């Protein structure tokens, strides 16, 4: 009877279909949550992140982490579009730390306080990094790493020009905390000394044009904030809602005039070279002094050039000030996988193993107290150039100035960059700065209502 209703061929076909269906269904043992992370695609970032992800997935086989990688500029635009659309497919976003306030007022980030113990919140990171990830009492973005600014010195070019280089950390000399403190406290060059040396280094020879000095992130706020800060200038009011009177203050006008002179008067730096290419020029022996971040160390080491690392300069009569702050990690408020995403966030930002893998692969100054202490104590950081992290630790503790906390940081950063690019190209700082301040205020007005 059964054979009549279901001939053997039909039964075997049904059995086959059922078996196939079962094989396609995920079994409980292999069911995995996928966490999607919106992050950078620049240089070695994705490769370094993959190593941390591998470490995390080995410990958490039920969670997979996948990255959506974008170049630096496009990342901010993508975050704006996808967060505004409340895109639940994104679980984690890389947050450039000054944007914490902006993302907070727009409701993009979920508070992280619940995913850390009170002890962890109190003691994992250096206070300035933890504070930078906090807005209106809520911890919204955990520090993934910090950053420090140095002055890289091309020793060969100094020697060829017959100049004495600034006191700096060099190969074959041990890097002790005492030596770092000594050169940072007593032998730090002023910008005036930098210009004098740069004038003598700038020349056109048989090997092409050599420039006296360059900035790594030309015209960007992160790089140039230290100029105004060194003269006591702020960019916005303490509440972050007003730029006129700050962005165009006398201190900033003086700093901007000095910046203008580098390109238009003394002509010790080139126009037209975009950020990111200046470090390559230094690595190609085309620049005498480069003001840049600690992430360049491995590039210059690989390039095989003879270089030293000196503390970031300051204006004579002013105070030493250096750029700081870097990438934090935030949890998308609209995420459907908050628990799993927070586990990875905890692993890479606070866990001993995860944060160590990130530091060792990425090579950026860490934000955790444990790693900073290790840098000061472990013998491997007594050797140049890795020992330069000790100078980074010194700057983070003594001269680092965080970027302004304002909900209009996106606008401020963009207008700052176009204003200083215009000044670099010859615009009068006394006109460009007030015009820039008015533009920033036009955008900040919406947050004052």
């Amino acid at each position, binding site marked *: 009877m059964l054979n009549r209703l279901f001939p053997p061929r039909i039964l075997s076909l049904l059995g086959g279909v059922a078996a196939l269906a079962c094989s396609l269904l995920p079994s409980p043992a292999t069911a995995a949550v996928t966490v999607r992370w919106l992050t950078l695609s620049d240089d070695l970032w994705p490769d370094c992140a993959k190593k941390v992800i591998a470490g995390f997935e080995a410990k958490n086989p039920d969670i997979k982490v996948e990255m959506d990688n974008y170049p630096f500029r496009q990342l*901010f*635009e993508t975050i*704006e*579009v996808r*967060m*505004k*659309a*409340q895109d639940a497919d994104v679980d984690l976003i890389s947050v450039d730390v000054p944007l914490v306030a*902006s993302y907070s*007022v*727009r*409701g*993009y980030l979920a508070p992280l306080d619940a995913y850390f113990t009170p002890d962890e919140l109190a003691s994992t990171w250096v206070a300035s990094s933890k504070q930078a990830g906090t807005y209106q009492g809520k911890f919204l973005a955990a520090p993934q790493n910090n950053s420090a600014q140095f002055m890289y010195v091309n020793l060969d070019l100094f020697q060829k020009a017959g100049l004495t280089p600034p006191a700096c950390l060099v190969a074959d000399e041990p890097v002790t905390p005492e030596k770092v403190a000594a050169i940072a406290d007593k032998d730090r060059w002023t910008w005036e000394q930098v210009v004098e040396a740069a004038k003598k280094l700038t020349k056109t020879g048989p090997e092409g*044009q050599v420039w006296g000095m360059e900035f790594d992130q030309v015209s960007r706020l992160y790089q140039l904030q230290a100029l105004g800060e060194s003269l006591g200038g702020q960019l916005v009011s303490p509440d972050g809602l007003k730029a006129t009177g700050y962005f165009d203050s006398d201190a900033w006008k003086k700093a901007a005039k000095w910046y203008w002179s580098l390109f238009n008067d003394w002509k010790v730096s*080139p*126009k*037209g*070279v975009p950020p990111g290419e200046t470090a390559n020029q230094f690595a190609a022996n085309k620049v005498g002094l480069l003001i840049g971040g600690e992430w360049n160390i491995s590039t210059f080491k690989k390039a095989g050039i003879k270089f030293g690392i000196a503390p970031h300069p300051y204006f004579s009569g002013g105070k030493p000030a250096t750029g700081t702050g870097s990438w934090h990690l935030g949890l998308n*408020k*609209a995420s459907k996988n908050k628990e799993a995403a927070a586990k990875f966030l905890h692993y890479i930002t606070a866990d001993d193993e995860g944060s160590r893998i990130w530091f060792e692969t990425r090579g950026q100054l860490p934000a955790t107290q444990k790693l900073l202490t290790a840098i000061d104590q472990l013998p491997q950081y007594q050797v140049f150039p890795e020992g330069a992290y000790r100078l980074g630790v010194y700057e983070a503790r003594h001269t680092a100035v965080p970027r302004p906390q304002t909900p209009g940081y*996106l*606008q401020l950063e*963009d207008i700052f960059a*176009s204003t200083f*690019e*215009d000044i670099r*190209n*010859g*615009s009068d700082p006394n006109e*460009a700065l007030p015009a820039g301040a008015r*533009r920033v205020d*036009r*955008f900040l007005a919406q*947050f004052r209502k």
Partner: protein
Amino acid sequence: MKAKGSAPLAFVLLLPAMVCLGVFRIYPIALTAWGSLRRESFEEAGRTLFVGAQNYVDLFGDPLFWKSLWVTTKLNAVINPVQVVLALLLAVMVNQRFRGIGFYRLLLFVPIGVSLPIACVIWRLMLDPQSGLINSLLGWVGIGRQPFLIDEHQALWSILAIATWKGVSFWMIFLWAGLQAIPLELHEAARIDGARTVRRFFRITLPLLKRSLLFVLVTDTAVNFLLFVPMFLLTRGGPAYSTNVLMYEAYKSGFIYGEMGRALALVMVLLLLVSVAVALQFYFLRQEES
């Protein structure tokens, strides 16, 4: 009777195109217009509030908007006539038959095969103030180095040159096709009657090319009003906002500053500008035709 019977068929045949027009043109424009009357709420991500004409009021009170409008108008007042005239001259040239014309045609088609972003990157290297090829060439003929893209008086015109290099061959193809549709007999008859080349061009070629010219002029204008890639890749609207066209300002407002209401208001202004420019072109060319 025949016309009456064919009306439903015409409607059915037009329907797919009308649906596409509605979905891909009218609906997005309506959405843009609606969005330009709204502004982001800071209480909840993704939520917007109705603010009436406030985005337009703010826009018209912003000096940068007027600067961007001026830059957009200035660019289009020059680039459209330049591109159409050059495309016409090239079309007349490639329409000739002489030994080696195939090589020149191939050369003229090369820019069409290069994408605009790649063209921009190549031109940026060539226009580099320190080590660019163009400045080296200028040096050989005794002209000093030019800042090109980093000078507020040269940047817009440098972009115009790049966009023209990229676009003119494309528009030339349409005009060339129009030229080939003109019967040779007309030129022969005019030649026998003693008309010279210039006279034949203005009395025969140009009048018979009017439809192709209208198409090229209208489409080129619409494309150039929305020109964005060179500003995005080469100048980011600078120096001193000298290349900050409305399209780039709209992009910046929407995707960098997160002010979508302002961006959509800018796009509506741009739409109005393009419509007016195209309507004027239709009006004058039709009037000449009649």
